[in-house]
């Protein structure tokens, strides 16, 4: 009988990622609802200090799966170690954060275990002893309720920020189960050559009080000037969603979202941005969010405080006009 929930923690530079604390929070909740135990597993090398710290803070037992080849992440080493762990422990549920790393290895792990995997969940409920998971589909315009078929273990990843993080420090005595694990010959084929941090960006939007951001709806590099003009009239920073930087309308360093910058200005004005989740995770904690989009069903409206369903090419020039009148003498004014 499989009666254990295992949260797979993701760590970087000796720190557990925030999304993993969110997974711990949900793991705890489900352990109560399902009457199961919950523990945390960490893969790596020389991570005992982290394991003790996380165990003390969370009160969970932490299983360290240690192997020298796991010092730096590679999907093959991680999957080998985790598949072996899953086969011996037979957990009911493996909970992960939906991160770029999870996207890289978890489908492989699930396939090795002959299981499916439910990615990027935003909600979960327990019905008739079964867990039902909610995920976003069709560009965030609809949600889909799903459940895994077949026998456990079930693999599920959680969307960043969708579940409350386990914040409280329980100051429990650390319980760490250290396991040195081996790797079979020849499993490592993908080799990490280097990790590159982008050079310190010249565009730091993290301190901006106001950000005006544009998206695919602007249509071209030339038309994107409208966003720059509004930002200038408001004394704001200029942000962009991925299609803008993909299309070369603006340098990459203006990109806001999971692969770019995360920002929390007091005011965020999103123009012609549909609101893909990859963008929302980078700006949804802003103080006040304004969305201007011609598609009334665009997911950006789900996080907006104020919304205008309309054409950015008609609305934004009017905003520029008013802003210039309000701030005479400002560089953005005529």
């Amino acid at each position, binding site marked *: 009988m499989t009666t254990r929930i295992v949260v797979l923690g993701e760590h970087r530079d000796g720190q557990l990622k925030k999304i993993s604390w969110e997974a711990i929070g949900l793991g705890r909740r489900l352990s109560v609802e399902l009457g199961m135990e919950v523990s945390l597993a960490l893969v790596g090398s020389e991570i005992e200090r982290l394991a003790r710290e996380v165990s003390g803070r969370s009160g969970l037992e932490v299983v360290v799966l240690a192997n020298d080849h796991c010092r730096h992440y590679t999907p093959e080493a991680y999957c080998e170690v985790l598949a072996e762990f899953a086969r011996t422990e037979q957990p009911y549920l493996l909970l992960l954060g939906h991160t770029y790393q999870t996207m890289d290895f978890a489908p492989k792990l699930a*396939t090795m275990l002959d299981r499916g995997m439910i990615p990027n969940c935003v909600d979960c409920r327990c019905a008739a002893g079964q867990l039902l998971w909610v995920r*976003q589909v069709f560009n965030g315009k609809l*949600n889909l309720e799903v459940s895994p078929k077949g026998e456990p273990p079930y693999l599920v990843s959680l969307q960043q920020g969708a579940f409350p993080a386990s914040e409280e420090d329980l100051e429990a005595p650390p319980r760490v189960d250290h396991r040195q694990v081996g790797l079979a010959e020849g499993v490592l084929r993908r080799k*990490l*050559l280097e990790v590159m941090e982008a050079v310190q960006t010249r565009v730091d939007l993290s301190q901006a009080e106001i950000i005006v951001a544009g998206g695919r709806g602007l249509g071209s590099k030339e038309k994107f000037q409208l966003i720059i003009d509004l930002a200038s009239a408001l004394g704001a920073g200029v942000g962009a969603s991925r299609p803008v930087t993909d299309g070369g309308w603006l340098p990459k360093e203006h990109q806001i979202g999971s692969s770019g910058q995360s920002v929390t200005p007091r005011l965020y004005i999103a123009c012609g941005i549909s609101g893909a989740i990859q963008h929302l995770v980078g700006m949804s904690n802003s103080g006040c969010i304004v969305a201007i989009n011609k598609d009334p069903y665009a997911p950006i409206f789900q996080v907006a405080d104020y*919304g205008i369903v309309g054409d950015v090419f008609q609305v934004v020039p009017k905003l520029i006009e008013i802003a210039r009148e309000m701030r005479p003498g400002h560089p953005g004014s005529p």
Partner: protein
Amino acid sequence: MRILTCLKQVPERDSRYKLNQDGSRVLEEDLVFETNESDLYALEEALRLKEGTGGDVAVLSIGSDRISKVLRNALAMGADRAIHLKDEAFERGDAWGTARAIAAAIGPEDFDLVLTGVQSEDMAFAQTGAVLAQMLGWPCATIVLEVALEADTGRIQVKRELESNVFERVELPLPAVLTIQSGSHPIRYATLRGIMQAKKKEYRVLTAQDLGLSPEAVGEMAAKVRHHRLLAPERKKRTVMIQGNAEEAAGTLMDKLVNEVGVI
């Protein structure tokens, strides 16, 4: 270099969705379909690799007759031949059922590299490429921005996107599967000449039986995830929708930002 690019047809980004009676599916009648964007980036990468080193680019898609538009467009963009997996048994598959069908189509071929997009815009599982790699027993790299061939070594180097402006460079032996992220190179358009040439290119239609697959091995029957129902997303905030024409709406918004929110 023999490259396969997998393409998926998805509803247009601005689509409005209507659900069927029990809310289990979207109604397709009013939808307009297009090629999934990151899959087009994968095709662009494949065509560039071919231009650099020579070789052959095949494209593959799964679905009814309507997906032939995706394959014809890919041929017009410069792909050399198309494989259309067409069978009711392939429909409504998850990553597992879909990857199983693609793996069977790859079996008798001799590809060095298989490219997919990072994820589809409709189901967004972001798994088919990685599951396919595991089924084939090939190495895989996901979320790839750049691909460089190392001449005569049978290996490739790729640049992967990580979170928060961090990247990594990894090396892997061929054959391999890569999932391509958007933004690497601008996607080319089909030219009139390309469209004319596409008509003469090889276009094969294969059924489950042609691939030696039983209906239980693919599509919905093989799915490891059960779909229950579609729901409208919950609003995280009570959004104030501002009405009126552009001028009125702009005026109301600025007034609220100044007087109610106090941020300007």
